[in-house]
């Protein structure tokens, strides 16, 4: 489903040196597979996510999603790709402030269907995520965990090929983190979505099908102690 071949992205640093944010990363994630990606700050995790989401173009290498090479997409094609093929869950919930949980979850569908239809489509998903009695609540009326679940619903609402989750449990306590990870795993398996979970949370490895470690732009097998440093 998701395939990265020798992907590289380098940036010039203010001191004139070259920062190898992503340096020859190759990776494959199958449908329904959840991969946890560890790495310290500045290891290139966010850059890698941006490349997979077609937000950044790599200097070299190929990124193939559902059989389609995405590194050559134009800006418009890249937007279209993200809207229909990618689901994003971020650390800080980026919900639309004045809109209800239902509207926020349906947000990603508005490019393809009417608001009414979009709401109808996401309502069961929100109910499944335990927000059946919070459908009309606005973000400020929801807890952090509830907001994160609204974002998961949004990310999965368009039945994406790839789910990218950037520290989805970063702001949650242990119990709520487990709930969120549990849900992510369950939904990815059920909806056959290839999921990449960027995290510092050591519990996440237990929920992932695989765990990897990104250091200095390169992927390594995950070693729990190393990830803790």
């Amino acid at each position, binding site marked *: 489903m998701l395939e990265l071949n020798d992907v590289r992205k380098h940036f010039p640093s203010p001191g004139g040196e070259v920062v190898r944010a992503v340096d020859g990363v190759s990776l494959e994630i199958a449908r329904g597979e959840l991969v946890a990606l560890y790495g310290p700050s500045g290891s290139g995790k*966010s850059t890698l*996510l*941006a490349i997979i*989401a077609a*937000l*950044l173009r790599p200097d070299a290498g190929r990124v193939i999603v559902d059989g389609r090479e995405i590194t050559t997409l134009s*800006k*418009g094609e890249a*937007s*279209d*790709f*993200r*809207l*229909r093929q*990618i689901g*994003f869950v*971020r*650390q*800080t919930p*980026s919900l*639309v*402030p*004045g*809109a209800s949980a239902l*509207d926020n979850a349906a*947000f*990603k569908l*508005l*490019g*393809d*269907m*009417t*608001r*009414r239809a979009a709401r109808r489509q996401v309502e069961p998903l929100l109910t499944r995520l335990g927000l059946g009695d919070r459908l009309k609540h606005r973000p*400020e009326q929801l807890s952090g965990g509830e907001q994160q679940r609204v974002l998961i619903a*949004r990310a999965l609402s368009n039945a994406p090929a790839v789910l990218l989750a*950037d520290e989805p449990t970063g702001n949650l306590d242990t119990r709520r983190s487990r709930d969120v990870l549990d849900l992510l795993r369950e939904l990815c398996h059920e909806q056959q979505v290839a999921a990449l979970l960027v995290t510092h949370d050591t519990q996440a490895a237990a929920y992932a099908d695989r765990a990897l470690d990104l250091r200095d732009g390169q992927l390594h097998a995950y070693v729990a102690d190393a990830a803790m440093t």
Partner: protein
Amino acid sequence: MSLRNVAGLYLVRLRGRIGQELLAFAGIAVGVSLLFAALVANSSLTGSFERQTEGIVGSASYELAARGAGTITEGLLAQAEALPGVSNAAGILEAHGEVRGPAERASVLVLGVTPGLGDLGGSFTKGFSYGFLAGVRAVALPTPLAESLDVALAEPVTFILGDRKVTARLGAKLQFSDIGDSIHTPVAVAPLRFAQELMEKPGQVTRIFVQTRPGQEAAVAAELRQLAGDHADVHPADFDATLFRQAALPTSESTAMFSVFGAMVGFLFAFSAMLLTVPQRRRLIADLETEGYRPRTIFKVLLFDALALGVAASTLGIVLGDQVARRLFDGAPSFLEYAFPVGNSRIVEPRDVLIAAVGGIVASCVAVLGPTATNVLGWSTSDGSRRARADGVARIDWVRLAGIVVLAGGVAIVVFAPASAALGIAGLAALTAAMLLVLPTLLGFVIAAVEALTSRVVSVVPFIATFDLRDGTTRARSLAVAATGAVAVFGSVALQGAHADLQRGLDRTTADVIAMGDVWALPPGKANLLVTTPFAAPRIRAGDGIARIAVYRGGFLDIGSRRVSVFGPPTSGPMPISSTQVLDGDVDVARARLREGGWMLMSEGVAREQGVGVGDRLTLPTPVPTTLRIAALSTNMGWPPGAIILNADDYERAWGSADASALLATLSPGTTPAAGRRALAAALGNDSGLTVETAQARQRQQERSTRVALRRLAEIAALVLISAVIAMASAMAGLIWQRRAFLASVKVEGYSTSDMWKALLFEAGILIGVGCALGAAFGLLGQSLLSRALTSVTGFPVVYSLAAVTALLTCLAVTFAAVSIVALFGQRAASVAPESGLVG
């Protein structure tokens, strides 16, 4: 915290919000500039005339003025001078005319003065070389006038005085040091004897100024009244300034009213901009509280913010306002020149500076301290916030209820209340308040309607456009933007509507007057537009396409504190009255009675002041006091102090003079106006100084003149609108710019730059459109109120017509202009890199 530390903290924080602070700075500066410009314009209008009057009369206590622009003899001057309580006396002889030089011609007041005028201590003839000019038999002109005519010293200039052309040499160019504030006044000064020769009025004067010995004022006044008899009136020496203030009142009041609208727009602009910095200030308050600072210190920090902004912006506003006053409001409205020698000195009173500066600083304090008051006072605890949220519905209902009540009050004033200045102002204030209270409800309805209408649209655009308008945390900012448009369009539509009604009324009045003759012969000059300059009517006979020639008489008459315009139409032609002019009485009966003689039509304002009504008798203070009955009450016929119409024969008796002010030719059937004009000019001969004009040409000239007279109102309306466009566009741009992080996060989801841009435009269109539409609707109510006030309070002739098209066009133009500017900012904001949305 010491003041130095407060200032240091201010500077550090300023770097982080310089953009928003500059917007607020611009808003307050715009508001202050409009307010200051209008204040200076008003001060200059009345102030320059007062100074000019003071320059002529010096320390004189009384004037003895010939009645109805007639004359009195120099013998009376000698008698006045000989009175025991009089220390000095001087006479002047005045006549309106036209002066012609090689390059230009101009309306001018020819003024003959006696050497005694300098002894009164006024600045006017301080450096006037009376002896020299008397010796060479020459006139003096202010340097600017002489330069515009392109006439050099010792060269001849031609004066048209009545129907006569006379020539005199230019003996002196007067400087500011010679005549002070009258330097910009169109005046030609000559020694009295020479002026009498030029005007063919030997031994005559029009006014005598008297300086009394200390403690002798009352006795001198009584003696002067005895000397005056029925030929002259005794007034305080600066009576002309009183008459001028009365005549200029509508101009001053309307300018002041619209400057208030301008200031409101500017201050709303500032308020919108300051709202952008509220979250930052709230964080600062929270930080200071956490660090243990007391509310008093926090208040000091915020007050410093407000004062720094207010003082800086007010200073710029005053500088800008000075430029606006110089470039746009310079010079007096031309209609005042018909009765007063008006200059255009610019006078800045300390009071004007103080009002404008205090206005700007208060606005700044309200904008800074208002939205954060609850935080400073510690009322914004989480409990309080929750309670406030819970009470939200009740609060919205309260606003709705208040809006409905105030709106009902405003409409009641518009529909039922008797017209008065106080009720007019109360009505406008009520309409403005109601409009602002109704705005949140209307915006809510529109958002709901847009959501309903777009619920089947497959696009993210309407969703993004409406969510921010619903968001409680940004609602105040959104409402401030819409309120700016509402206030500006309200003021502008009300003004433009009333302005158009007044224009129609004046045009109709002009048409009624001009319809008295097909071709007119009258003394030339812009100042004679009301046809008030007398001349000895030449004996000419009809023929060559002219069926009849009649004499029209007109002039000014001082009644009470008003310089009233007097119309004396010939009985043989149509009376210049239409039903739109008559406020009390029957128009046909009034016409018949005027023709019959012994009756007059009087402006309601003059009649009210004199305590008379239809059918009553009133003795006019004319050169030959004459008692006439009132046939009907009318509007002021377009002359602010009011008007009187009596037939030309009654006029002749009352003024004791057969002089005409115009000859009116009625053309034979089949004669074209151009042929009639040529025939009348030929009959008058080449030596006549009279100008001959067709009725059509006069109509065009007068309509042009009234448009110029009302120019200032149109200019202020345009300035208010331009300010509003800039204010709304800036506030929206600031709002949009702050949302780039959100836009980036939406783009991460896969929505395009184009979607974001369209959504921003849609949102701006809703917000600005709703504000402007509401302003336009309320503006139509305001128009009705203003038009009624113009007729009933100021007495202007008004033909009311709902300014729906004006309202629609204003609304569309302002919305389009503001949204177009927003489009540019929106494009930049929407182009934000989506990857920046991954941060955080």
